[in-house]
């Protein structure tokens, strides 16, 4: 699961106020592959994402994988260097959560991610 996808996910567990953004539990299996940069798409996606959530999850992951994951500016710069665009591309498209858990910020409910597919199904007492 890409961090781009992660940026759109929220927890709907009963009792959550926002359920967003979801944390990624420490020790998760990540994969970071290089892929060609689609400049156009990156720029468009940056307008769609919740920027602070993107920065905070990137910073969290950097605690474990500093060498693979670039640092992002705390707020979206007005003009973007090519290198910064490449960094955004890497964070949005190349960093993938393979196995691990997503964590609801309000309730602590963990959603398992297996082979890149998160399971967001709620139990009957959670709806």
């Amino acid at each position, binding site marked *: 699961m890409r961090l781009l996808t992660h940026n759109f996910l929220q927890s709907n567990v009963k009792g959550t106020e926002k359920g*967003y953004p979801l944390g990624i539990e420490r020790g998760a299996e990540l994969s970071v592959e290089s892929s060609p940069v689609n400049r156009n798409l990156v720029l468009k996606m940056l307008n769609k994402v919740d920027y602070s959530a993107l920065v905070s999850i990137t910073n969290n992951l950097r605690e474990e994988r500093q060498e693979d994951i670039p640092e992002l500016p705390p707020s979206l710069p007005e003009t973007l260097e090519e290198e910064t665009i490449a960094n955004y591309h890497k964070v949005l498209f190349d960093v993938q959560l393979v196995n691990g858990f997503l964590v609801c910020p309000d309730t602590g409910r963990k959603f398992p991610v297996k082979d890149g*597919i998160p399971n*967001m199904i709620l139990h009957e007492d959670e709806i």
Partner: protein
Amino acid sequence: NNNNPPWWDNSRQVCEAIRSQLHVYDTSGKGIELYISNKKKTSNRTTHFCHVGMRSPEDARALMAGLQGKILTWKQPCDWNDTSTCTTEQQQQQQQQQPTIQSDKLFLDYAAVTKRSEAKATAKATGEDLVKGEKSRSECTSVTKHVVVPGLVLITDFITPQEEQVLLAALTGPTAPWAPSQTNFSNSGAVKRRVQHYGYVFDYETANVNRDRSQPGSDCPPMPGMPPSDMSSLEAYTETCTAEGRGWELMAGIAERTRRTTFEIQAKDDDEEEQQGQSTITKQFPKLNQITVNVYEPGEGIGSHVDTPSAFDDGLISVSLNGGVVMEFRRQQQQQDDEKIKKLVYLPPRSLLLMSGPARFEWEHMIVTRMTDTHEGVVLHRSRRVSMTLRTAIDLSGEPMPCVSSTRFPPVWGTVGQSATDALVTPSMEREHVHAVYDAIATQWHHTRGKRGVLWPGATQFLKELPEGSIVADVGCGDGKYFPAIWEAGSYVIGSDISLPLLQQATHAHQQDAASQPDSRRVSEHRQHLQKKPAVLVADCMNVPLRSKSCDAAICIAVMHHLSTRDRRIRCISELGRIVKVGGLINIQAWAMEQQEKSKRKFAGTDVFVPFNAQPKYLEAAKNTAIATGMHPDPGKSTAQLYSEEYNADYDEQKGLVVFKRYCHMYRTGELEELVQEVDTVELYESGYESGNHFVILRVVT
């Protein structure tokens, strides 16, 4: 002859003689079973019955087809003696001397060996090789022509074949509200067949009607009710319901038609003189407030009884659907005589039978458990009969109880549908007949449907027209067949589905496509990367795990027709409206009740099971995955066993297919639009019909 009894008095020899002519119908190789019983009927004449046990219904039918009405001649069999064969001259001579016997015109009838007699046979253990058959001799209805049951009225073609189809779809289809409290009776043995009460529950243990609907075990669906505005145009109402496949509403119309029917009843008793019997009286039963639906599979019947007089008023009405049956009537009080007065009445499908006056209070009625009936000399094989019994439940003072009815479908009663979150809990119907089915058939589904890439042109066009770089939610994406169209349009798709196996197909498929694309046809490397790892989530469309107002557009294709209640359909639309930005578009497509002339699909009702024929080779893989992941409860079971038992599927032995039953709700024209009106966040932008599907395009307004 020679002072010896003739050979045909020896049951064993008769058995052998008959066996020699019938064994050709045995395809099992296990041999047939014969049982001769001597039944004394009158003092000077003995009637012999021969029960023939075939190993399969197919053999039994073949035998009946081959020998019905024939006259057979039997010779003394050769191997009549245990120790010798017919080689000696003496025996050959003896054989020639012994005359042959000839049968009458054969009358053959058959019954399935019931569970009870099977149990009996097992109890008898190994010593006996003969199973006594069920009582199966059916008499002909024409024999009882002279018997008149006063108060009995049969109206043929009370409903039309079209109405019958729509009613059957509703009564035996997925939304038939067979209350669990009543299925329990079949477990306790009080009632073997499938029964559902409407209005008031009839309790078979106490043989009375439960008048307080709030008591546990007394809650049952209300009577189907008609909107008051349609009461003045009943026929137009039933016609519309039939055309639109609305079974519940049609049932209300048929009940009302029954209430309005004026019955002409022969008032004479059979003791009276013929000429006196000209007097007919007319009656109506406007207070009918209870319906009992029974499903009689071939071979099932009902014991002789009079409906509890203190529970139901005069006027018992039975409408037969799908299959006909011969009903037997006997005078309740009569002398203990073998020649009981008995009337056999054939109830054809679509007929209405009224029992009134003496027929209701003084005559018992029953249905014999057997596979065939004989009507005017013709043997009729029974098929499933669905009967709708309409009665008037009365209170302790004998006054009709109020008619508890509802125009709402599916009907709501008891604690069902009371709280707001109920819509969010997956009903067992969807769990068993949608989710479990797709999990099981995911591989084949993808191979035979998704892979071929049959897309609705309207949906593809919708995706094409979205601005480049849109975030598109594909809610209920299945194996992701619309993903390529979204990537093609330069957008990013997040797919969600409740079935993990289908999502795995989506992931696997696009990975393969990405790898196998020839260089010349290569899409950008970037797109290839997206394709390798499509964004998919396991999620329920009742609770889409995407943040509000985050997506530019959403599609929901072929999903809504798997939602089994109106509240859930509305919830699905409101979830789509929540996740999409203001101004964004939503495309919803669902199966239409109205199918095109050339379509092989025809739906009898709005709520139906649509079969999916699964090939075991695909299921095998699913089963192995289940074992490997520890999800499989019992690896020892065969694939067919597993799926027929645990997934409520049928097994077609001949074709070797497991037939899954997928629940589907077919949308009528205008139904999606009507649901959309219930959701404040969206407005209707466009709607239409495309190749058997209705679609709506919505714009998010808040």
